[in-house]
């Protein structure tokens, strides 16, 4: 298992944001996490990536390492990369610097070499830049490399965040609503790029997404959260038919026919 959580818990005051979630993800899979607003999807990401500390009794394992109480940068260094719902772009840095800062954990030279400014630094920096330019042209941002990230359009920003997360060559990439706010054409385009990247870098993916079509089309397995609890897990089709899921999303009052219609959008 690449990622494993056992009895994962997090409470904010009296509210149980994540309640005893056991989660297992084998390498190479594309996993979707869905659930209504406030069901704990983003909290789950924040716990795994170390932004929040989980409550005592929880256990998180990534790639064979216990990362339960590790700080985020150590988790990142192990090869777990993520994006944020609010993007958290480096607004005041150029596009290329945004991506290159994602490369941080892979930089080989030592700090002292950087201070002295030895030639091997500049050689490596050039390599890094070339590789990152390639990545940028892959996502279609190479022309904008020198511009400030704040000058990009909404769709370009989502691509940039994606490129920055991939720059560290992660084993696991967690995408928090990568397609939020995009037009259907752009969503398709973005998902195509994500799939290409997955194949190119051999990624394992976890995707939180509100656009169910995306999840249904791309994910191998889907985990459904509601009120912090895992209520279902299975292939998209299994989940689609799960009564608990339908209930969580739509409440009980609709009839079967209407539910299916609503979910198929």
């Amino acid at each position, binding site marked *: 298992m690449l990622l494993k959580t056992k009895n994962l818990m997090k409470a904010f005051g009296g509210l149980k944001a994540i309640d005893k979630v056991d989660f297992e993800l084998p390498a190479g899979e594309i996993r979707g996490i869905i659930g209504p607003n406030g069901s704990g999807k983003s909290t789950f990401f924040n716990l795994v990536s170390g932004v929040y500390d989980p409550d005592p009794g929880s256990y998180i394992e990534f790639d064979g390492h216990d990362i339960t109480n590790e700080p985020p*940068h*150590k988790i*990142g260094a192990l090869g777990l990369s993520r994006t944020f719902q609010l993007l958290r772009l*480096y607004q005041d840095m150029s596009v290329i610097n945004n991506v290159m800062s994602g490369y941080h954990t892979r930089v080989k030279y030592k700090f002292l070499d950087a201070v002295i400014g030895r030639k091997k630094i500049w050689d490596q920096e050039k390599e890094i830049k070339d590789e990152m330019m390639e990545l940028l042209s892959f996502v279609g941002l190479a022309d904008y490399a020198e*511009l400030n990230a704040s000058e990009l359009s909404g769709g370009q920003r989502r691509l940039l965040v994606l490129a920055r997360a991939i720059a560290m060559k992660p084993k696991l990439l967690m995408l928090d609503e990568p397609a939020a706010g995009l037009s259907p054409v752009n969503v398709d385009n973005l998902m195509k790029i994500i799939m290409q990247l997955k194949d190119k870098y051999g990624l394992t993916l976890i995707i939180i997404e509100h656009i169910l079509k995306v999840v249904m089309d791309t994910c191998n397995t889907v985990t459904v959260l509601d009120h912090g609890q895992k209520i279902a897990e299975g292939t998209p089709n299994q989940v689609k038919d799960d009564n608990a899921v339908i209930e969580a999303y739509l409440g009980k009052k609709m009839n079967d026919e209407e539910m299916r219609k609503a979910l198929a959008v």
Partner: protein
Amino acid sequence: MEKFKNIIREYPFLGFIIAYLILLSVPSIFFTDLYQSHLASLIFINIIVAAGLNIVKGYCGQVTVGHVGLYAVGSYTAGCMFMYLGSDLWVTLPAAIIVTGLFGIAFGIPSFRLEGPYLALATLGGGEAIRIFIENGAFFNSTYGISSISQPVIFGVPFDTPDKYYYISMPVMLIAVYFSYSILKSSVGRAFMSVREDPISAAASGIDIKKYKILAFILSAMFAGAAGAVYAHLPPGYIHPNNYTVIEMVTFLAMVVFGGLGHIWGGIIGAIIITIVYDITRPLYEYQLFIFGLTIVLTILFMPKGIGGFIDKIFIDKRFKKKKVEEGK
């Protein structure tokens, strides 16, 4: 020309050697009197401080208003070593850098928990505390100030006049700027910037926030320490706590802001322009503070990224437009 540019890009060290050779010949070609050498040394000292301040403030985004305290630590380390041990610049300079670096840790620790104005207040307190401590301590000879701090002697030639001291302060400045350049151009500089822009997302990229914050404080403290030591030995070699007040701090900040926060040459451009403008406006002393206040306000209003950012913008826009035109064809 293009080839030459590429060589410099690949070996930035060469660029600094060329700069050194140019600066070496500047006095004999352009300087008409000793005061210009003195002013040049002051500019170099300010450049060292501003380059350091640009690391912590411009790149790492940590608001520090206590930097002048670190500058004072550098000066007084050098001054006290001279007074009690008779050491000269070659000993006091590294010692000042190390001691001030240690003080930098103390200034950096509050940044783990405090941000923005709160961090500014904490560092302001630290800087003022250092000055008042020096002012009240008999050990620092604060009644009279430490005077006649020696100038270095090389091959029997004492560098004890402004025109000769130029050749001491200038290489120190160049080395400092070179270090700042290579640090900021490397992954360390990018890590600083990402800490400034978004610590949470930087941590997700595997960047250790605390480590880089404290590193920024230590590095910039070392710059301030070096500048302080070079200032202490500047002829006539006199230091007094009056020179390390909040007003000096504001001047240093003005240099970095005016030159361009977070621009690799920002602090340097700012230090040169502010020091020269200050000197030209010397006879207008009644309006000097007004002129400086106005400059800062106007800079922040119309050029929030300072001169450096302004120049960059021109270049990038030009390049971008050119590209667009080519694509259009």
